[in-house]
C-alpha cells in the first residue's frame, strides 16, 4: 500500500515539475510587462524534443549516450527520498537528507563527463564551471542540512519535513542558505542563467550544448524535477507537513510552490547574472549564512 502511495506522489511530482518552470517564466514575463508563453509551454517544449530526431557528435563515446538516462533516472530516484506533500510518503530506509545531496552528485558527475565528451571547448568550459560551482555549493548544502537536522535530532527528511511548530531562528537562516543552494543548483540568476546561450557566460547550458532531441528532453525534464525537489525541501523546512488531510496538503503544496516561484522569479528579474568569480562571493555569503545558522543553533535560538 505504501509503495503505491509513494509511487503516486512521485508521479505527481514528476508531472507537475515542468509546470513550476512554466509558472516561474510566466511570473517573470508579467513582472517585466511582457505577455510571454503560457504556463504549459515547458510541456510543449518537452514533447517537441521527445519526438525529434537526434544529432550526436562523432567524437562522443558511450558516456554521452547513457548520461541522459542516468541523469533522469537518478533524479527520479531522488524523488523517492523526499516527502513532497504528505508525510510517510517517501520510500523508507533508502536514505536521508545527506544521501539526497550525494544522489544529486551522480547526475552532475555524468553531465560534466558528457560535457567533455564531445571534444568541444564549450562543453569543457561548462563542465569545469559546473564542478567549480558545485564544489563551493556542497559545504553550504551539507552544513545547512546539518543545521535543520539538528533542530529535529535526525537527518531523516521525514522528520525534518514534519517538524511542526519547530520554527527557530536557526532553521530560518538555514532555510535561506538552502535557498541560495537552490538558486545555484537549479542554475538560476545570479549564479547561472537558464535563458542564456551566450558562449562565455553559460554554465549548465554549455555542458549540455551538444545534446539534442530526446536526450536533451530527458536532461531538461531532470532539471525540472531537481528544481521541484529543492522547492519541496525548502518549503517543507519553513512550512512543515502534516496536520491536515491529503487534499488540503496537496493544495498547500501547490501554494508553497507558488510562493517560492514568485520569490525566485523576483530575484531573477531584479538581478543580473554575476560573473563567475563574483558568484564565488555569493556562495561565500551563503556559506557565512549557514555558519550563522549553526551559531544560532548553538546559542539555542
Amino acid at each position, binding site marked *: 500500500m505504501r509503495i503505491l502511495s509513494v509511487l503516486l506522489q512521485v508521479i505527481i511530482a514528476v508531472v507537475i515539475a515542468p509546470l513550476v518552470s512554466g509558472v516561474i517564466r510566466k511570473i517573470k514575463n508579467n513582472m517585466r510587462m511582457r505577455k510571454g508563453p503560457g504556463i504549459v509551454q515547458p510541456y510543449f517544449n518537452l514533447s517537441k524534443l*521527445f519526438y525529434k*530526431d537526434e544529432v550526436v557528435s562523432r567524437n562522443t*563515446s558511450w558516456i554521452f549516450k547513457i548520461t541522459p538516462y542516468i541523469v533522469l533516472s537518478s533524479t527520479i530516484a531522488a524523488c523517492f527520498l523526499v516527502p513532497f506533500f504528505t508525510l510517510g510518503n517517501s520510500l523508507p*530506509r533508502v536514505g536521508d537528507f545527506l544521501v539526497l545531496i550525494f544522489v544529486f552528485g*551522480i547526475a552532475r558527475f555524468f553531465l560534466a563527463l558528457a560535457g567533455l565528451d564531445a*571534444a*568541444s571547448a564549450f562543453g569543457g568550459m561548462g563542465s569545469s564551471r559546473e*564542478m567549480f560551482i558545485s564544489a563551493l555549493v556542497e*559545504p553550504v548544502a551539507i552544513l545547512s542540512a546539518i543545521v535543520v537536522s539538528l533542530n529535529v535530532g535526525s537527518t531523516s527528511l521525514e522528520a525534518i519535513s514534519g517538524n511542526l511548530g519547530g520554527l527557530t531562528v536557526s532553521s530560518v537562516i538555514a532555510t535561506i542558505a538552502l535557498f541560495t543552494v537552490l538558486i545555484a543548483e537549479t542554475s538560476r540568476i545570479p549564479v547561472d542563467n537558464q535563458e542564456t546561450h551566450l558562449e562565455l557566460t553559460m554554465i549548465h547550458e554549455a555542458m549540455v550544448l551538444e545534446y539534442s532531441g530526446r536526450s536533451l528532453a530527458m536532461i531538461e525534464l531532470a532539471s525540472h524535477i531537481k528544481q521541484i525537489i529543492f522547492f519541496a525541501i525548502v518549503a517543507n523546512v519553513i512550512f512543515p507537513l502534516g496536520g491536515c488531510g491529503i487534499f488540503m496538503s496537496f493544495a498547500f503544496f501547490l501554494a508553497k510552490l507558488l510562493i517560492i516561484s514568485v520569490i525566485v522569479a523576483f530575484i531573477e528579474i531584479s538581478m543580473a547574472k554575476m560573473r563567475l*568569480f563574483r558568484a564565488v562571493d555569493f556562495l561565500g555569503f551563503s556559506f557565512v549564512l549557514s555558519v550563522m545558522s549553526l551559531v544560532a543553533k548553538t546559542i539555542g535560538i
Partner: protein
Amino acid sequence: MNYFNINFSLLFDPLSLFFICVILLLSFPAAIYSVGYLKNHYSPKKIVLNWVLFVLFIGSMILVVSARNAFLFLVAWEIMSLVSYFLVTFDSHEQKAVRAGTIYIVMTHIGTAFITAAILIMFKYANSFEFESIKHACGIMPQGLRNLLFVCFFIGFGTKAGIVPMHIWLPYAHPQAPSHISSLMSGVMIKTAVYGILRFIVVILGIGSLWWANLILGLALLSCFVGIMYALMDNDIKRLLAYSSVENMGIILLGVGAGVLFLKMNLPILAVLALAAGLYHLINHAIFKGLLFLGAGSIYKATGTRDIEKMGGLIKLMPVTAVCFLIGALSISAIPPLNGFMSEWLLLQAFFLGALNLMGGWKIFMGLIAAGIALTGGLAAGCFVKAFGITFLSLPRSKKTENAKEVSGGMKFAMIFLSVLAVCFGLLAPFILNILTKISAFIIGVDVTAVKFSFNNISAFIPQSNAYASASLLATMLILGVIFVATFIYFAFGKSKVSSASTWDCGYYNLTSRNEYTSTAFSKPFRIAFSFFLKPYKKTEKIRDSFYHVKSYKYEVFTTPVFKRYIYDPILNLVLKSAGQMRKMQPGSIHLYIAYIFIAVILLIIFMYRI
C-alpha cells in the same frame, strides 16, 4: 638486560587482522597486475629483483601490523621503509627517481627517528618492549611525558601517512615507483601509519588530553584541503592520485580523530561509529586508490606518458581500462551507490551526531568539519571529472595516444577485480559496517554488542539520528529507473532516429584536438578562486615571425608549493648554511686536526673528573 633477547611472537588481535586483510586484499591484484606490467618494460633481471622486493615489501608490511612488541615493530617498520625506497628508485637510471627516493628516505627516517625516540622513552618506563607491559607503564606516566610521546608518535606516523605539513615526500615518491607498487604504497603502505596511530596512541598510550584530538582533526582537515587542491592542479596522472591520497588520509584521520574526541567526551558509541567510518574509508581508499593507480599504470604502459594533457579519447582505445578507471573515479568522488559514498556518509553522520551531542564551541567545530568534508568531496568530484574526462574522453591529443592499445589480460583482470570490490563494498555496506563496528569497539575498548548500525542487512542505520542509507536499494532504484525510463520513452514516443555529425564548431572549419578543453583550463576556476593558497604564476612566451606577427604563443602556469617554499626550503637552507660554516673547521691542515684532538682529550679529562 639483553636487548637482543626479544620475543618474535606475533599478535593477531582484530586490529592487526583488519590491517592484514587490507594488505592481502590489495597485494593479490597488484601481484597479478605486475606480471603484465613488467613484461617488455624491464629486463628479466629487473623483473626478478622486483619480485624479491615485492615479497619483502608485503612481508614487512604484514610484520609491521602483526608485531607483538615494539622492537620487532621498529625492525619491520625500517625494513618496510628501506624496501619501499628501493622500489621507488626502481627506475634507477632516471634522475627523477633517485631524487624522489632521496626525499622519501630522508623524510621517512625523520619520522622513524621520532617513533624510535618515543619507543625508547616508553622502554625506559616499562623495561620491556612488549605491548602489554608498555601499555601498563603508560598508565602511570606523568601527563607531560605522555603529551611528549603523543607528539613524537604523531609526527612519526604522520610523516608516513603523508599528513600535511609532513606530506612533501608523497607526491614525489608514489608516482615514481612502478604502478603496481604505487598502488600498494598509496593503498596500503601509508595505512600502516594509521595502524601505528591506532596501536600506539589509541590502544597503548590511551587518550590523554582533548588537544590531541584537536590536533589530529585540525591537521587531518588541512590535509584534506591541501591534498585535493594540489591534486586538482596537477596534470601528471600518478602525481594527481598521490596528492589525492593525502586528501584521503586526511579523511581517514578525521574518523580516527573524531573517535578519539568522542571517547574523551564520554560518547563511546559515537566514538565507535566515527572510528568505524574511518576504517571503512581506509579499506575503501585501499580499493579505489589501488584501482586508480593500476588504471594509471595501464595508461602509462599504453601511451608512454603520464601527462594527461597529451591524452584523450582513450575510452575507445582502452574500453576495459576506461570502465574500471571510471568506477574508481566514481567511488573516490563519493558517488552513490559505490563504496566511497558509504564511508563519507558515515563520517558525516558521525560529525552530525557529534554536533547534536556536544555543546557550545564543539557544536560549531563539528559542523565546520562536516562542511570541510563536503568541500573536499566537491573538489574531489571536480578533480576526478578532470582526471577521467581529459584522459579518456574527446579526441586524442598526441600521436602516442592515438596508437594506444588495450592492456593484457592479467592487468585487466586485476583492475576488474578491484572494480568489483569497489561495487561490493558499497552494496554490502551493512555487513561490513557490523564487522568494522566490532573492530573499532575492540580498539577503543568499549562494549557495543547492543548497538547495531544496520537494518536487515540492507540499509546502514544510525539509531541515534534515525538515519538510513542503503547503497543496494539506491543501486536497484537506479537500475530500475534506467530500464523504466528507456521503455517508457520507447513506448510513448517511438524509436528516435539518431544521426551522427561533427561537434558544433560555430561554423568554423573542422575542430581538432587542439580546440578541446585542456586539463589546465579545467582547473582554472579553482586556481583563481583559491589563489590565496595556490599563489599561481604564469610564464608566457611569444615566438614572432616579425614584429607584427606572432607565430606561436607559449603559456605555462605554475602554482607555488607553499609548504616546500615556506617551510622546507628555509630549513634546508639553514642546514646547508650551517654545514658550510662547519666546513671552515676542516681546512685540511694536519696541525689543526692534532690541535682538535688535543683539545678533545683535555675536555674529556675535565668531563671525567667533573665531580
